[in-house]
C-alpha cells in the first residue's frame, strides 16, 4: 500500500502580481516502509513539496494523502531540515525531548524515552552540550534523534547531509539505512547528490524546474546495499540519473523560467 499518494498537485504563489506555479501536476506514490529520493535542480519546488507533506503549507490544489489521511490530519510525520533546525539555546537533551514536551507526554516518560533514543544514536555523553559545541555529523544525529523520538511513520528530510564532509556523509547514510531497516519507516529525502540518491532511494524521482514537476521515476534495486557503492551497476545508475538531472537543469534555464 502507498504511504504517500499525490495526484495532480498544483501549488501557485504570487510574485509581482503574477501567478507563478511552484509545482504543477505532480504525481507521486511511495509504498509504506520504503525509501524515496527526490532530486532536481535548485528552485524546482522540492522543498515546497516537502512543506506540503509536513503540513507547513496548506495552500495547494490536488490530492495529497499520507497513509490515507491529509497532511493536516496526519500526526505521524517528522521533518528534518537542511540546517537541522536545532535550537541553539537548548542542550542536546532539551532539543531531543522537545517534541514529546509539546505533545504533553508525562515528564518521567519523556526522560526515559529521551535517554533511550540518545543511547541508540550514541549521543548520551553529549546530552549537556549545545548545538554549537557539536560537529556537523553530531548535529545531524541530534536532528534524527529529535525526529525519531516521536516514533513517526513518515520521515521527511530536506538535503539532510549536504553540509557534511564525504566520510561523515557516508556514515550518516549508513546510519539512516540501519534505522530504516529497524523501524520500517517510510522515508522521503530531497538531495542534490546523485550517489546519495542511488544509495538511499528505492524509488528515485527526478524533478524539473519551471514548472516544478516530476519528469521521471526509477525503481532502484541497488538501494540499501552497503556493498553497492563501488559496483558497476551503481555507477551506471548514477550516470543515467545524471543525464536526466541535466535535462531538468536545462529546463531551469529555459526562458519561461527566467
Amino acid at each position, binding site marked *: 500500500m502507498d504511504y504517500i499518494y499525490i495526484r495532480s498537485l498544483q501549488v501557485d504563489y504570487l510574485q509581482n502580481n503574477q501567478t507563478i506555479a511552484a509545482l504543477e501536476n505532480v504525481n507521486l506514490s511511495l509504498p509504506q516502509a520504503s525509501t524515496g529520493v527526490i532530486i532536481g535542480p535548485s528552485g524546482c519546488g522540492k522543498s515546497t513539496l516537502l512543506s506540503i507533506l509536513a503540513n507547513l503549507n496548506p495552500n495547494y490544489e490536488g490530492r495529497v494523502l499520507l497513509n490515507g489521511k491529509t497532511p493536516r490530519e496526519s500526526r505521524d*510525520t517528522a521533518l528534518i531540515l537542511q540546517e537541522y533546525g*536545532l*535550537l541553539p539555546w537548548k542542550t542536546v537533551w532539551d532539543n531531543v525531548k522537545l517534541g514529546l514536551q*509539546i505533545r504533553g507526554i508525562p515528564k518521567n516518560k519523556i526522560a526515559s524515552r529521551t535517554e533511550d533514543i540518545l543511547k541508540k544514536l550514541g549521543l548520551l555523553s553529549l546530552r549537556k552540550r549545545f548545538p554549537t559545541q557539536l560537529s556537523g555529523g553530531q548535529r545531524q544525529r541530534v536532528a534524527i534523534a529529535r525526529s525519531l523520538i516521536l516514533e513517526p511513520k513518515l520521515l521527511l528530510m530536506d538535503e539532510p547531509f549536504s553540509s557534511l564532509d564525504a566520510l561523515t556523509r557516508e556514515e550518516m547514510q549508513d546510519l539512516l539505512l540501519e534505522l530504516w531497516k529497524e523501524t520500517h519507516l517510510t522515508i522521503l529525502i530531497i538531495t542534490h547528490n546523485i550517489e546519495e540518491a542511488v544509495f538511499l532511494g528505492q524509488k528515485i524521482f527526478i524533478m524539473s524546474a519551471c514548472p516544478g514537476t516530476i519528469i521521471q521515476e526509477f525503481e532502484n534495486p541497488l538501494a540499501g546495499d552497503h556493498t553497492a557503492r563501488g559496483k558497476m551497476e551503481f555507477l551506471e545508475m548514477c550516470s543515467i540519473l545524471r543525464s536526466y538531472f541535466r535535462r531538468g537543469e536545462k529546463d531551469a534555464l529555459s526562458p519561461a523560467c527566467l
Partner: protein
Amino acid sequence: MRFLPLASKILHILATIGFLLVSWQIFSILLDTPAFPPPEQAVRSFLKIFRSDLAGHLGVSFYRIMFSLVVATILGVPLGLFLGKSKKADRLSAPFIYLTYPVPKVVFLPIILILLGIGNTSKIVLITLIVFYQILVTTRDAAKNLPKEYILSIRSLRATERELYQHIYFPACLPAILTSLRLGLGTAMAVLFLVETYATREGIGFFIMDSWSSLAYDQMFAGIIAMGLMGFILYLLLDFGEKVLCSWVNP
C-alpha cells in the same frame, strides 16, 4: 581552573579602579580648585556619610531605577516579541513607533509632573517610558530577524502559539533583551539624575545637586561615587543574569 579567570578578572577591575583614581588625582592637582577635590577626600567623605545620609538617598534611587526597569521589561518584552512575530501588527504599529521613538521623552517631564505630581510616580513613569522604547524596538527587531528554520522546525511538531513564544521567540531574543536592558540602564541612570534634580528631596541626584549648592564638594563627589557604584553593581547583576540565562551564546 575556574579560579584563575576570576582572579584575573578581579585584578583587572582593581587595576582599572587604580587607574581611574590616579587620573582623578592628577586632574585635581592640575585643576587646583575646591570644586574638584582629590579622590582621597571624596572617598573619606563617602565613608563618613554613607550610613548617616547617602545610603537613604541611594536606596530611593535604586528603588526608582529597579522599578522602572522591571516595569519597562514587563511591558516592552512581550509587546516587542508580539510585534516581531506578527507581520500585521508590526505593519500597523511601525509608523507609530517610528514617529514617537526619536522624540526625546525627557521633554515630557513638565507634563508628566503636572499630570502625576512630584512624587515617585512621575519619575518612575518617565524613566520607564524611555527604557520601554529601547527594549521594545530591540526585542521586536530580534524577533523579526529570527531564522525561519527555527520556527518551521517547531511548527512541524505542531506547537501552539504559546509554545512558539516559550521555546523559540523568548529564549532566542533573550540575549538581545539583555543587551537592550544594559543600554537602557545607562539611559535610565542619566534620566534618573535629571528627574531627581527637580521637585524632590530624596535620591542620589538630589543629594549631588544639594551638596553642590551648599559648596560641599567632597560630599558631591561622594554622591557621584555612590551613583557610579550603583550603576556598576546593576551592570554586574545584568552580566550575571546573562551568564546564567544565555549560557548557550558562549558555551
